[in-house]
């Protein structure tokens, strides 16, 4: 899809402002927030449908690498949308409400992970010449590793989709009272529209659209809240005054607000290491034109992601401050041990935003997991759909689409039956990704001596250490990821040194920074 002209951007901006005006009018006329959310999701589906029709492909190879030589001005927006995910929006908000100020470290962890991807992983994978992430791994470790690589990537992708759909369900239930059984299938349809028609060629503009919805969905309500609470028209700076007033009130209540730097550090490192190793965030890079383009896109994506992620804490900080003010004024007890769903529902009750603003936020908070799920589908399809270079009469392309549809179905069922809240599930996913995948990934990019046996030892050791520590009662955000990563790296290096590979892998070139 070609770069948008200034005229196109101006037209879409006017349409967006008009749409927000209509929804505000409907809200003023008494239309409920849930109904307005349904209208937003319907509009999202209509635009995704239009993108899908315009980007349909007829060959499996185009499904994976549509943009290698084409203009791709939308890619940074797509990178940011997939990276932020449900965790970067409603997840961070819920974490701050549940865990307090230590959860601020999640912001630096998430942004830091994206920056590391832009510096290290994105350019290296783009220079590898592979057509997909599984293709690169099989080139790196040999065809004998194929089944294991594909299986691991498929399981990761399905788990990620389940958790992201769980975040969407959390938004629907806690903020709008919509049951997950109703919302999850709708979100699953949006996910399919965002990727199935043309693979990468559909996904990039679709994720860019989803990022635009997410951007407006977070920043417009944040602007309203910041102005209402502090009069500061920049949502990123508004939390300062609220935090200060909240701290004064907490001191008068005798509440200990002293954070735990160790806990905050481990939270940040878990998110940084985990998001860097989640394969859905890597799936795009092998299809980029070259390392310089991949770095450029990832850098621009970092800036866009910061613009959204840094505005999210305002909501949770304001809720917490209002709770403290209420406790100070009326002697009401501060909420303790709330689940993410309870914390979000309490937050909405306290902020009591206009219905149209709540619906806009909901549409943004649902767009984020849809964008992440689209990348995860492409990952699973590329892992299980077959080799696109052996395409015969559309057989591989057809398999890509069936695998993608099946993956969303399985993910939806898992999301509906998930025994824990999506925030806890995502933290667990981050811990196991950092423990099992990160060391083999980084070593495979930086050290030619890493063998297939070494990588396998790293994956198994990291996974076992992570699961064992969690089973012993160690919190998944309390350092499990760091210990698992270390154990995985030691095992990978040791096995590679003991059992040398007779045919070392070709080198990976990482272009220097400009």
């Amino acid at each position: 899809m070609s770069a948008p002209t200034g005229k196109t951007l101006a037209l879409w901006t006017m349409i967006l402002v008009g749409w927000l005006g209509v929804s505000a009018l409907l809200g003023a006329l008494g239309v409920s927030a849930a109904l307005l959310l349904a209208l937003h999701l319907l509009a999202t589906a209509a635009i995704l449908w239009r993108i899908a029709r315009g980007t349909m492909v007829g060959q499996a190879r185009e499904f994976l690498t549509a943009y290698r030589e084409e203009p791709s001005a939308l890619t940074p927006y797509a990178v940011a949308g997939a990276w932020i995910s449900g965790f970067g929006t409603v997840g961070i908000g819920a974490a701050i409400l549940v865990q307090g100020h230590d959860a601020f470290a999640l912001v630096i962890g998430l942004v830091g992970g994206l920056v590391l991807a832009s510096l290290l992983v994105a350019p290296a994978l783009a220079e590898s010449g592979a057509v997909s992430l599984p293709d690169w791994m099989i080139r790196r470790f040999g065809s004998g590793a194929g089944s294991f690589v594909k299986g691991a990537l498929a399981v990761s992708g399905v788990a990620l989709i389940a958790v992201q759909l769980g975040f969407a369900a959390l938004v629907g239930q806690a903020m709008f009272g919509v049951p997950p059984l109703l919302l999850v299938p709708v979100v699953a349809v949006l996910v399919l529209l965002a990727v199935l028609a043309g693979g990468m060629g559909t996904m990039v503009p679709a994720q860019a659209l989803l990022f635009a919805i997410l951007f407006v969905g977070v920043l417009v309500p944040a602007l309203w809240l910041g102005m209402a609470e502090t009069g500061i028209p920049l949502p990123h700076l508004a939390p300062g005054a609220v935090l200060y007033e909240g701290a004064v009130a907490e001191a008068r209540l005798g509440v200990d607000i002293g954070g735990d730097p160790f806990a905050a550090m481990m939270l940040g490192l878990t998110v940084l290491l985990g998001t860097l190793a989640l394969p859905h965030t890597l799936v795009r890079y092998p299809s980029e034109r070259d390392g310089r383009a991949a770095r450029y896109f990832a850098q621009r994506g970092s800036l866009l992601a910061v613009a959204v992620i840094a505005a999210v804490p305002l909501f949770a900080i304001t809720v917490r401050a209002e709770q403290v003010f209420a406790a100070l004024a009326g002697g009401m007890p501060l909420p303790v041990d709330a689940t993410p769903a309870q914390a979000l529902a309490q937050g909405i009750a306290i902020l009591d935003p206009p219905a149209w603003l709540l619906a806009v936020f909901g549409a943004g908070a649902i767009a984020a997991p849809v964008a992440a799920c689209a990348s995860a589908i492409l990952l699973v399809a590329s892992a299980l759909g077959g080799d696109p270079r052996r395409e015969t009469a559309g057989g591989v392309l057809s398999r890509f689409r069936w695998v993608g549809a099946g993956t969303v179905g399985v993910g939806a069922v898992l999301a509906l039956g998930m025994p824990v809240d999506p925030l806890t599930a995502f933290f667990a996913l981050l811990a196991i990704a950092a423990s099992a995948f990160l060391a083999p990934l980084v070593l495979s990019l930086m050290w030619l001596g890493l063998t297939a046996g070494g990588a396998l030892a790293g994956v198994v050791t990291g996974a076992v250490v992570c699961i064992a520590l969690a089973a012993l009662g160690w919190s998944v955000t309390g350092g499990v990821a760091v210990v698992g990563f270390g154990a995985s790296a030691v095992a990978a290096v040791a096995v590679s040194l003991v059992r040398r590979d007779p045919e070392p892998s070709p080198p990976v070139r990482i272009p220097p920074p400009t």
Partner: protein
Amino acid sequence: MMHGGTLVRCLVVVALVAALPWIAALFPEGRAFGFPFPAFALLIGGPLLFVVLAGGGGDADARDVPE
């Protein structure tokens, strides 16, 4: 293989994620841009520093920027 400057930037990012909570805790009474310093370091200062560390990005292909 990896350029030395890139490796340093990567290590600085990891070190900052680990160190910022401790640095923030050293100045619990500090203020910055209207924020309590610990919150500013984690919510605004750190992410902006990371964007600077990501650096460069001025070498875009003409095909990759809006017309």
